[in-house]
């Protein structure tokens, strides 16, 4: 297992380097360019002569960097968990109806112009969060047969409920008129205007989801060999599935509530990481978190600095950059890929 371990270290070092350079660039670039050499000094010195730069860095750019990391990390990990849990390479965090539920909640908030605050959350993130979790709960109950939740029915129920909610969401959008632009931005996923507040509010849900997932990663390894095999190896299968579903849903819902539906991260990051470090979920899922966060942070930096002051929805960037990157990977590593032998 020595080979695997040194490979993991290598990937970890690369990811850390990407993360640090990305963070530095993200702080330097923007509608105001700040020389990157000066950034550490400005950050760690409250008495700095560049007070306005310091304000931009701390009030605007730092929270967005952290948001990118947290949201990307949540989506990457949730993707890794769902792909393992559903034993389906096409699975992503949105597959089981989460995106549709969140979208439904968000569009409702926008359509009716509701404006309230619950648990410190504004109406839109709250409804998106609640919509996502409610949908997963309903899907789970629908798929439940005699105390068990077969993975296939969970998947199918999720897809069916998702279609239904998407249709309702589209129906509401038909009646929206001038707010359509906002909905569109939200559906593509964006960090525009988000900051410390959102980060603080969602961190508890993210952390809870993260702990739950981390707790069951060992069992997830056995679950991917089939539920029967997992049971024979001592896994309490149904309990493990519930914990993983709740954990991954919390991660996804907290991400969606902040940033809308950012696609692609949860689908391709787990694939790339599996190709790089192998399928041991104890390492795969945390690496997906690190890689997803780094990827999304880079994406967000591009999204807001390509055409300033215009911000492109970050979902467009992730799809545009991620698609070709993933195809390149797929071609190169076809041999090591899912079920293809050799």
């Amino acid at each position, binding site marked *: 297992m020595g080979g695997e371990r040194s490979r993991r270290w290598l990937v970890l070092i690369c990811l850390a380097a990407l993360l640090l350079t990305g963070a530095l660039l993200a702080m330097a670039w923007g509608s105001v360019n700040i020389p990157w050499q000066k950034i550490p000094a400005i950050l760690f010195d409250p008495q700095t002569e560049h007070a306005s730069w310091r304000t931009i860095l701390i009030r605007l750019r730092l929270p967005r960097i952290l948001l990118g990391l947290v949201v990307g990390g949540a989506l990457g990990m949730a993707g890794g968990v769902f792909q393992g849990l559903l034993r389906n390479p096409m699975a992503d965090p949105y597959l089981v109806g989460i995106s549709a539920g969140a979208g439904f909640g968000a569009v409702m908030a926008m359509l009716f112009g509701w404006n309230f605050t619950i648990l410190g959350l504004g109406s839109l993130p709250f409804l998106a969060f609640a919509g996502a979790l409610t949908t997963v709960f309903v899907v789970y109950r629908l798929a439940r047969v005699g105390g068990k939740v077969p993975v296939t029915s969970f998947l199918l129920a999720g897809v069916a409920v998702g279609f239904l909610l998407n249709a309702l969401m589209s129906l509401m959008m038909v009646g929206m008129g001038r707010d359509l632009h906002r909905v569109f931005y939200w559906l593509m996923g964006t960090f525009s205007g988000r900051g410390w507040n959102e980060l603080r509010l969602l961190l508890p849900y993210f952390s809870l989801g993260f702990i739950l997932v981390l707790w069951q990663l*060992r069992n997830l390894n056995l679950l991917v060999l*089939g539920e029967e095999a997992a049971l*024979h190896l001592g896994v309490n299968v149904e309990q493990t599935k519930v914990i993983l579903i709740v954990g991954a849903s919390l991660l996804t819902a907290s991400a969606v509530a902040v940033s809308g539906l950012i696609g692609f991260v949860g689908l391709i990051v787990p694939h790339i990481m599996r190709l790089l470090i192998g399928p041991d979920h104890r390492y795969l899922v945390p690496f997906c978190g690190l890689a997803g966060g780094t990827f999304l942070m880079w994406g967000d930096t591009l999204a807001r600095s390509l055409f300033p002051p215009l911000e492109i929805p970050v979902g467009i960037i992730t799809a545009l950059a991620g698609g070709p990157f993933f195809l390149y990977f797929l071609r190169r590593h076809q041999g090591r890929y899912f079920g293809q*032998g050799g």
Partner: protein
Amino acid sequence: MELFRLEDVSFAYGEELVLKNIDLTVEEGDFIGILGPNGSGKSTLLKVMSGLLHPDKGRVFLGDREVHRISPGERARIIGVVPQETYLDFPFMLEEVVAMGRYPHLGWWGTLRYKDMEYVEEALATTGLLELRQRSIHQLSGGERQRGIIARALAQNPRVLLLDEPVSNLDIKYQQGIFELLLKLNRQEGLTIILVSHDLNLASQYCQNLVLLDQGQLRAVGSAEEVLTPENIAKVYQVEVDVEKWSPLEKPRINLRPPPEENGSSKKIKPRRIHIVGGGGSAWRLSKRLNAMGHLLSLGAVNEGDTDSEGARELGIECIREVPFHPITEGKLKQTLELMLKADLVVVSEVPFGRGNIGNLKMALEALKKGKEVFVLDGENIANRDFTGGEASELWQEMKKKGARSVNPPELEQILKEGE
């Protein structure tokens, strides 16, 4: 010591009753084969024992506790299971898969300690997979993968191994390899083994005890000799077979009989009573053939321990036996004559005749005189196997004069087929 005890176990998938009132005990150290046709409940029985399925009625004990009351983790430290199918969608390395067998012994993160690595090592070595340990499971052949799954179960360090058709997709080399491995584990480590198999001969050869299931019920339980009888197999599988004792291991072997032809091209053979005079193995091939054709045979008289005496025992043929190395006595000859007279015809095979068994020839002549049809196999000249100083040859000639027909075995079969 008793390991498993099933008390009146029934199980149904929905409305369909798959197991009916099964009572079964498995002793520690046993090597059991569960046999039965498709859909007879073999795999279900295994799943009920492993705790995967909970019986609708009755109880399954593992040791002194009911199996479903034992937590999955503890169960996995006692029972290792090799399921019929394992999903291997993800490209784990072989040694990672085998190391998963240690998980029931590990903490929440699954860190392997030195001791665990030793178990993994040993499991890989036992299954002969050490050199393939770094390979992705997608790069292994079917046999290697199956051995890998067995290695994973061994790494669990269980007391009992349950296997569902462990060799069904493998060629005979791997079939032998896996069964030899199981036998070794059973004999040397005292590992209890319970497996489901479709291959009656493999099960007969390797298993200590067999369980024959028929539509969810136990048809027979016991040694291969007790379970694999033509009657049991005919009842359970609805096929006609011959069971012979395969000499190297003294285990029953099953051979399929060609089904009776149904169109009119060949007449159905009318079973006859045939008495065969044999000895020294001269009657073995003939009696096997005639027995397979469905005729009712008797044999004698021969000495106990004679090859033909053993052959008769194997085929379940009535046989007059004299004590070893003793001339055949008047009493036995009288019984032989009675059998000859009861038979439709008498066949004298190419037996060497000496003072001890010349009486048989006299009895055959007697039967001939009383109007019984007698066939003599004459391939080897009687003079060459006459050790009586001419007496046997004389009797032989006299029998021929009185109408005994000289034939070779194929001719005899043909005559019997034509039903003359």
